[in-house]
């Protein structure tokens, strides 16, 4: 088991966004989290990646208790993520964005930056660049490397964001609605990319609205509704579950 969410709750000024949620994520799996809008999925990701303080319960990553750890430390432990609305560094090029992902795997400080010899690019910088280029190649974005990130079309920004998350060598990758706003072709490509990432041995926790994508690639699905986990099981089990149909699929079919 790579991630264990134990009876977690999150309260926003009296409003309970998550309540008593327990989820165990197995190593190497693609684990999906679904649920209607406002169910608390993104909030759960924010608790895992450390953007919010947890109100109740505990989250363990491997043998480490995450409660109270800073987001960058969690990243260093091996948790990478993307955002529901893509958050690239808009002023940087695509390549630089991915190079930022290498930050916590490299070490040069300010002094090393100013006083390294011989002149020219340091060996670490070269290594960062090469690694970032590899990840760009992995997501098929090398042709955009030198462009300013903010100018890319949305589906490509999403791929760059995934490359950036991969650059920090995560063992657990959190993807928040990666297919949102994509057409069927783009969604299929993304689907293949996620499977490929999983094929490298990385565990994937996936929030997704697109049922085809979720049912096709995930091995286990947890369903959230109004901040509570209502069902958990294989895609087949979840598909048949009346509570899920009522909470989520039913609405979709109308």
């Amino acid at each position: 088991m790579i991630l264990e969410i134990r009876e977690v709750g999150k309260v926003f000024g009296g409003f309970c966004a998550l309540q008593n949620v327990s989820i165990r994520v197995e190593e190497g799996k693609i684990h999906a989290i679904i649920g209607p809008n406002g169910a608390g999925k993104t909030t759960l990701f924010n608790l895992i990646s450390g953007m919010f303080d947890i109100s109740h319960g505990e989250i363990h990553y491997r043998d480490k208790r995450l409660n109270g750890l800073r987001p960058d430390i969690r990243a260093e432990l091996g948790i990478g993520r993307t955002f529901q609305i893509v958050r690239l560094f808009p002023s940087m090029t695509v390549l630089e964005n991915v190079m930022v992902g290498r930050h916590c795997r490299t070490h040069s400080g300010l002094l090393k930056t100013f006083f390294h010899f011989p002149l020219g690019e340091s060996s670490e910088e070269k290594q960062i660049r090469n690694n970032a280029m590899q990840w760009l190649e992995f997501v098929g974005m090398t042709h955009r490397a030198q462009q300013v990130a903010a100018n890319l079309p949305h589906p490509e920004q999403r791929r760059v964001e995934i490359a950036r998350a991969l650059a920090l060598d995560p063992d657990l990758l959190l993807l928040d609605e990666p297919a949102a706003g994509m057409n069927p072709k783009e969604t299929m490509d993304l689907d293949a990319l996620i499977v490929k990432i999983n094929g490298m041995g990385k565990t994937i926790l996936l929030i997704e609205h697109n049922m085809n994508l979720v049912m096709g690639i995930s091995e286990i699905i947890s369903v959230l509704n109004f901040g509570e986990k209502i069902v958990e099981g294989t895609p087949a089990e979840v598909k048949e579950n009346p509570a899920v149909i009522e909470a989520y699929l039913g609405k979709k079919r109308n």
Partner: protein
Amino acid sequence: MEYILSVATVAGINIIMALSFYAPFMTGQVSLAQAGFAAIGAYSAAVCTVKFGIPYIPAVIIGGVVAGVVGFILGIPALRIKGIYLLLLTLGFGEIVRVIFINIEYVGGAAGFPGIPYQENTFFYAYGLVLILIVCFERLRNSRMGRAMRAVGDDETAAEINGINITAVKLKAFAAGAFIAGMGGGILAHFQEFIEPLMFGVMHSVEYIVFAIFGGVQVFWGPIFGAIVLSFVPEFFRFVQAWRHEIYGALLIVMMIIKPEGVITNDSVRFIKKIFRGS
């Protein structure tokens, strides 16, 4: 000639100050404390040379270090706050520094600190430091720390999620800015031979912001360009000299309306580099 040299020297010091503002600005921190840090550097360096007979270069560096340390300490609470709150904190700090120097009789109090040895080669020292800073900022630009700083400036949350300790990055940038401003102050003190608390008011911090914003904040060449242009232009046009500050003010407003990114942008730097490479 002497006149031009003196204007150019002041321009050099202004470049240093504009860059001192730019360092924390890269990480999204707007500081109105830079004149205060310059005051700390100026007084520390002057005390070193006047009271302890320490030579010029170490004195200026000590001035920078003292300012840097104070910047580091101020930076710790500054990390918790953002935007307008940070601006107010640095504003208050800048004024406190001034008032404190008014009250220290050891360095002349409100009457000022006279008899600072004149450094006749200030021009070379100022531009020497500018050159060093250019090398540092250029190296920073394509480096792990430089990218981290820009990432924090672009989007703190995304930076933190990608493994950047934003607290450390912002603190370093803030202290570095204070260090640069401190050295600028030390150089200024030994050029003017006399310093007084009035020379380091908030309006001077504002002036450095104008240099940087006018020149552009996407790359460090922007503040350099802004400091040079706004230091030289008023000296050569009488009309401009008399209305210098009003023109600064209007310029700032007009820039904010039509070109908030400043004159020098990433694109213009790329363009110029292309010309130099001749391709």
